[in-house]
């Protein structure tokens, strides 16, 4: 897999080359060229913000088609907890899980269950206190990528535990191969995803380990099938194994609330996340032990591949959380699961903003950048295809743009040119000059007298 696989991609046909996405991208990863948005691969963190803001639906997430499950003999669906928030008509969580199973799967295992395992492990880590400053949740892959490209000093703060999705896939594969005596390669595990970032984390994991998940199907793609299956259920199977603690992970703040500490901060929405990460980097949040940062507003319930309005979804999932509480599910311990939950690979800083490998050259470029920037109008209009005047100045010093890409600069040049032309228009070579006024001028100049 290429080092820059991205789930977020562009539909060339639909893209009109407007400025909506370039202005919203948190890593300034999009430029418009030839009236199409181009994503700069090394900068994209797959947060899906552009998918959300594109009025032409030209930004999309590459996910796997439902037909892909047919490549495997035994198919397991592992739904993100956010799925529950999409189905307000469902009687219970078991109904949703049964309907999901009816979409062509042999087994369903809740990611919410694995989330509880991560919760228990996180509590242990918080007790050990072997980390600098607050621990930052790694549940949102877009946030981990953001830290990698913009907050290198916070890489050590990332909670380096496998994601609930990975743990769920591993457990599902282990259990099925053990209990049903099915070869591991015949088992296909599919994540039902609310977002693009999760897809990327499956295809190109940041700790460079191979994912246990075989495919990712978006909630949008499978929604109608689940809905129609819900209507056909006679008796729901008992498939739900998670308690309210795991189900609550779908909400922003759900992961932190389970940790039993008040010293947590939950932030959602990628631009809000950036503001909080700045605070942590400047050591302004030292009395906080745990930071739950989610790229989407409203957490995973607000994922770009979900169906239901985020606020509606919040109300719907509350019902299922309460239901899980009524049934008095206990927060189960990790005793039955002996997995290595810690990341084995290394997460490295990706200095995408660096102007040059050579410091002296970078200095020159930075100076030129400032000079160019001070000559630009500062309107940040985006008409040049860059998100701001400063970003254009940066593109120019990197050799990816020209000063005349700025329509105001171009207009200024055209005007200067027009003024020059007007000036030249007045000047005629004396031999051709038949104008009376210029004759007088010639006489005054003391030219040869005809008489």
């Amino acid at each position: 897999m290429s080092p820059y696989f991205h789930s977020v991609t562009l539909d060339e046909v639909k893209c009109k080359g407007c400025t909506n996405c370039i202005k919203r991208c948190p890593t300034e990863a999009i430029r418009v060229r030839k009236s199409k948005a181009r994503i700069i691969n090394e900068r994209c963190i797959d947060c899906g913000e552009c998918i959300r803001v594109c009025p032409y639906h030209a930004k999309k997430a590459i996910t796997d088609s439902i037909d892909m499950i047919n490549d495997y003999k035994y198919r397991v669906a592992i739904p993100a907890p956010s799925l529950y928030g999409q189905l307000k008509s469902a009687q219970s969580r078991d109904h949703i899980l049964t309907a999901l199973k009816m979409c062509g799967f042999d087994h369903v295992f809740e990611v919410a269950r694995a989330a509880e395992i991560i919760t228990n492990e996180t509590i242990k880590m918080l007790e050990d206190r072997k980390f600098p400053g607050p621990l930052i949740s790694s549940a949102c892959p877009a946030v981990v990528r953001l830290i990698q490209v913009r907050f290198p000093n916070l890489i050590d703060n990332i909670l380096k535990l496998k994601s609930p999705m990975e743990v769920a896939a591993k457990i599902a594969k282990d259990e099925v191969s053990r209990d049903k005596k099915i070869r591991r390669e015949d088992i296909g595990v599919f994540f039902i995803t609310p977002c693009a970032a999760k897809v990327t984390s499956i295809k190109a994991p940041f700790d460079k380990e191979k994912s246990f998940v075989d495919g990712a199907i978006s909630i949008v793609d499978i929604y109608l099938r689940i809905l129609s299956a819900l209507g056909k259920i006679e008796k729901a199977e008992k498939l739900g194994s998670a308690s309210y603690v795991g189900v609550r992970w779908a909400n922003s703040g759900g992961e932190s609330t389970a940790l039993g500490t008040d010293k947590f901060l939950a932030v959602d929405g990628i631009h809000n996340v950036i503001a909080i990460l700045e605070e942590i980097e400047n050591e302004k949040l030292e009395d906080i032990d745990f930071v739950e940062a989610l790229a989407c507003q409203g957490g995973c319930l607000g994922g770009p591949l979900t169906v239901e309005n985020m606020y509606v979804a919040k109300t719907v999932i509350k019902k299922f959380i309460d239901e899980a509480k009524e049934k008095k599910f206990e927060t189960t311990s990790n005793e039955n699961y002996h997995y290595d939950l810690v990341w084995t690979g290394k997460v490295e800083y990706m200095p995408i903003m660096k102007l040059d490998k050579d410091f002296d050259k970078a200095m020159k470029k930075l100076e030129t950048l400032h000079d160019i920037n001070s000559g630009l109008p500062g309107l940040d209009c985006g008409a040049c295809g860059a998100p701001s005047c400063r970003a254009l100045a940066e593109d120019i010093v990197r050799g990816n743009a020209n000063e005349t890409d700025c329509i105001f600069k171009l207009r200024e040049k055209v005007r200067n040119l027009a003024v020059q032309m007007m000036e030249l228009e007045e000047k005629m070579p004396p031999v051709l000059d038949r104008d009376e006024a210029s004759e007088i001028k010639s006489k005054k100049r003391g030219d040869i007298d005809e008489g």
Partner: protein
Amino acid sequence: MTYGIIRKDFVIPANDFTIAGEASSCVKKMLIQLGVDPQKVKKTAISMYEAEINAVIHANGGIAEVEIDRNKILIRIKDDGPGIPDLELAMQEGYTTAPDSIREMGFGAGMGLPNMRRYADKLEIRTEVGKGTIVEITVFLTDN
């Protein structure tokens, strides 16, 4: 061989906490673009931020002069404020002269100067009561 030097000046506005910190975050951005080691970027950003906030709280703002060359980052924060009568006392953690109104906003905890000393490689303060203060922060980029 002569090396390039980048100079940039910033105005630190008076009494405006919402804008305070803009200069340091701008410098931070520059250093990241230069490819400066993230740890050094952090040291610079934090110590400069503290000096900036101090100028806002105590001195009605001031100016920040920043010089970057391949060996070091030099930040000079100048103000025409009241000056610091007892510098040794001011350097102590928790010592503060900030009014309650500012402390209520979460600033003025008496950590400004101690934090600057902690993060800057070199810290020089010239101050005169009634005239003003110049804080000079140096972060070295080379290890000699």
